[in-house]
């Protein structure tokens, strides 16, 4: 008998085959050209536009929208990509509702912002679908930079360095480049292998050699890289995860949300991917939402997100919370896990209600149980094994200015570096700015 949503435990193939395709299709379908023209016409071409300030990469949004409006989406794409080489991915994954679109004056006026993200996607897709790479490298400088980590930060840094004529060796521990674009972002935000295609497109600039499967720490030490290269950039993200530290955490069925998502993103056949009948996700951020929504889309019968504080403290945006709710995910707040109950395999989770007090978060003593065959932990990632002798700050690599670490010749950016939101677009901005700083240092004689 084939599996269904009611099949107990953790099982694959809970849904009829064609539903997987439907469930994991584009979250925001791309614009048709006419829709884009109409959407673009809504932009007021604001003076000193608030949307630009709200974009971590400071894309000239009114300009690119006007370029779409006048029928030159490829020019619009160049405006975008000049500031943000991963403009295609950002168009898909940015929480625009808390960035540019939140600042749009039409959001203020009508609660209906110009759909900047979708317009950005229209422009970048048009250019990338035409197979164009619009940038050409400056003449070789003879300088060599090692970029560690091929996530958004590392890719943005490598591209900008290559553009300036430097040679880049791009190292990544994983077998594939892209970082969380490839292994973390929700599948319905980046359909049709977009992350992979974008990396291939980006590398067309030339001058970048990708070394996938080569980790810093294993074989390549930071000191050796500093020896061999004129500069080093670290964009290694956060590969560690926080533990729950509750009884029963070692039961079968308890896993890290990021690993569950990585498995899903790499799955050839989603119907072969096992998922619990009752899934409980613990956490309140983007990862929790993505793990919960995708569990539901894989066919889990019930999915609950449990967050220890109030809803207003959840770092997932209102849009993300609504998305989860619309897919049938229940969000329980002010509940902290006490133990995972089961006999070998998880069966349920016991929670205690909490309240916010002057002394901080406190349990109320009242407990309740939620059925759970699968428990996904999404309570934050950590910097795993940071190279020794780098100064840290709040568990991340301390930086000053455009990503300068405590070690001369070593820059860092993205999630692994202190400061800034843990977002794709922020990682791109930091990688790009570090590259400019490295370039200035390598060419201006101002070598730190």
């Amino acid at each position, binding site marked *: 008998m084939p599996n269904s949503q009611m099949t107990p435990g953790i099982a694959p193939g809970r849904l009829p085959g064609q539903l997987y395709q439907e469930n994991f299709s584009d979250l925001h379908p791309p614009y048709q050209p*006419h829709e884009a023209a109409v959407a673009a016409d809504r932009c007021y071409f604001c*003076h000193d536009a608030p949307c630009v300030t709200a974009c971590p990469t400071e894309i000239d949004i009114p300009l690119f929208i006007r370029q779409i409006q006048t029928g030159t989406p490829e020019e619009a794409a160049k405006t975008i990509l000049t500031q943000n080489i991963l403009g295609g991915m950002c168009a898909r994954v940015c929480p625009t509702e808390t960035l540019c679109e939140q600042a749009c004056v039409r959001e203020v006026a009508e609660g209906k912002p110009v759909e900047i993200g979708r317009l950005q996607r229209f422009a970048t897709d048009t250019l990338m679908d035409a197979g164009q790479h619009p940038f050409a490298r400056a003449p070789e400088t003879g300088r060599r930079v090692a970029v560690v980590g091929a996530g958004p930060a590392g890719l943005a840094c490598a591209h900008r360095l290559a553009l300036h004529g430097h040679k880049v060796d791009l190292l990544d521990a994983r077998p594939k480049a892209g970082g969380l674009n490839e292994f973390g972002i929700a599948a319905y935000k980046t359909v049709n292998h977009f992350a992979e295609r974008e990396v291939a497109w980006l590398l067309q600039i030339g001058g970048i050699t990708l070394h996938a499967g080569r980790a810093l720490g294993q074989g390549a030490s930071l000191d050796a890289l500093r020896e061999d290269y004129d500069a080093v950039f670290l964009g290694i993200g956060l590969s560690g995860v926080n533990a729950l530290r509750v009884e029963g955490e070692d039961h079968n069925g308890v896993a890290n949300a990021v690993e569950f998502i990585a498995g899903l993103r790499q799955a050839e056949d989603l119907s072969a991917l096992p998922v619990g009948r009752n899934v409980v996700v613990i956490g309140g951020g983007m990862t929790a939402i993505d793990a919960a929504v995708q569990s539901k889309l894989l066919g889990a019968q019930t999915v609950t997100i449990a967050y220890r504080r109030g809803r207003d403290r959840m770092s997932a945006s209102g849009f993300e919370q609504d998305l989860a709710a619309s897919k049938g995910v229940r969000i329980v707040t002010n509940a902290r896990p006490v133990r995972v109950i089961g006999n070998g395999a998880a069966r349920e989770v016991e929670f205690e209600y909490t309240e916010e007090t002057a002394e901080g978060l406190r349990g109320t003593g009242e407990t309740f149980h939620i059925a759970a065959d699968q428990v996904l932990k999404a309570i934050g990632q950590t910097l795993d094994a940071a190279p020794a002798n780098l100064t840290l700050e709040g568990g991340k690599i301390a930086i000053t200015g455009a990503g300068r670490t405590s070690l001369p010749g070593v820059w860092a950016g993205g999630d692994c570096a202190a400061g800034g939101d843990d977002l794709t677009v922020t990682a791109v901005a930091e990688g790009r700015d570090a590259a400019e700083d490295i370039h200035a240092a390598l060419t201006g004689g101002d070598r730190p």
Partner: protein
Amino acid sequence: MASLSCDFVGIKSPNPFWLASAPPTDKEYNVRRAFEAGWGGVVWKTLGEHGPPIVNVNGPRYGAIWGADRRLLGLNNIELITDRPLEVNLREIKAVKRDYPDRAVVVSIMVPCEEAAWKAILPHVEETGADGIELNFGCPHGMSERGMGSAVGQVPDYIEMVTRWCKQNTRMPVIVKLTPNITDIRHPARAARKGGADAVSLINTISSITSVNLDTMSPEPSIDGKGSHGGYCGPAVKPIALNMVAEIARDPETAGLPISGIGGITTWRDAAEFLALGAGCVQVCTAAMTYGFRIIGEMTSGLSAWMDEKGYESLDQVVGRATPNVTDWQYLNLNYVAKAVIDQGSCIGCGRCYAVCEDTSHQAIAMSADRVFSVIDEECVACNLCVNVCPVEGCISMVAMTSGDTDARTGRTVSGDYANWTTHPNNPGSCAAE
């Protein structure tokens, strides 16, 4: 409820909305459907003389300008007068008029500039029972190259001459349709009146090229790689038409000459504006060609609701009501001083007012670090540009200063007296008002 019934130079119609002479009125089938939809009258598509009809191009005859959502803003055409045989048109006109006696049926005519030609066609038109004729001196393309249409309309003497021939050869009211492709619309209007015209109608279409295909380098609409100038109409031409109507309405030499207003009328509001400036009835072409005949429902309901709201009972209470307020620049009150005022409550912070005033006007808007925009009275000349570019209607307004206030820009006290350029000290030709 206000009455929309209309009596234009003795031609009666249940409402003042006529379809202009154009494709919508080119045949019986269309006109019957228009009347069923509620149109008050039609001016039949222009008839030419007896004999082989003219021919049209066999490729695209229209070009257009659009807004972002493909809203049609302007239309251009290279169509000629009717390409159907005269006899067929006359037969159809007669049948329609017989079946719709309460509607206005006016026949547009364009024949060569010889008295015999006009004399020959008029009895046939009269025989149809039509209510009047409209002389087409307007088409800017095709016909003018043959010495007809705007080739006649651009020479006031010809207008007067042809009008007179018509008046002498028919008992029907004669409406002279004017071309806007001239420098001063008053001259052809005066000529029409001199020739004895019962009324003028305007505007016909404006010579234009709507666009150029940048791949083929052909103007649009393109016929086998070449284009020709056509006639422009639709919403984009309304301001030009309104001004020309007003010019004729207030010219002492033509004052009182009935006017049928045409040009870009798309809504009841457009029509009301034409009426207010002096048009006794209006004609519509492009709006019908864009949306079909059913728009008449909105036009009549809107006009009548507005008249009720304002307490106007009949059209004659509306016609020409705004004409006295059209004046020459030199008579505008230079003691009237206004300032822009920004309503902070409705401001959405886009900064368009700031950008345009700073870059292209008087640097009279200040922007704070937190995007509050405010008017600097010392610099504001009340030009209205900020109002026009502001995306929020009613957010910026022009507020008149009261007499006795001090204008922060000039330091002068605002006077309540009227004073214009003719008496201004800077005017070399001014005569001090003693």
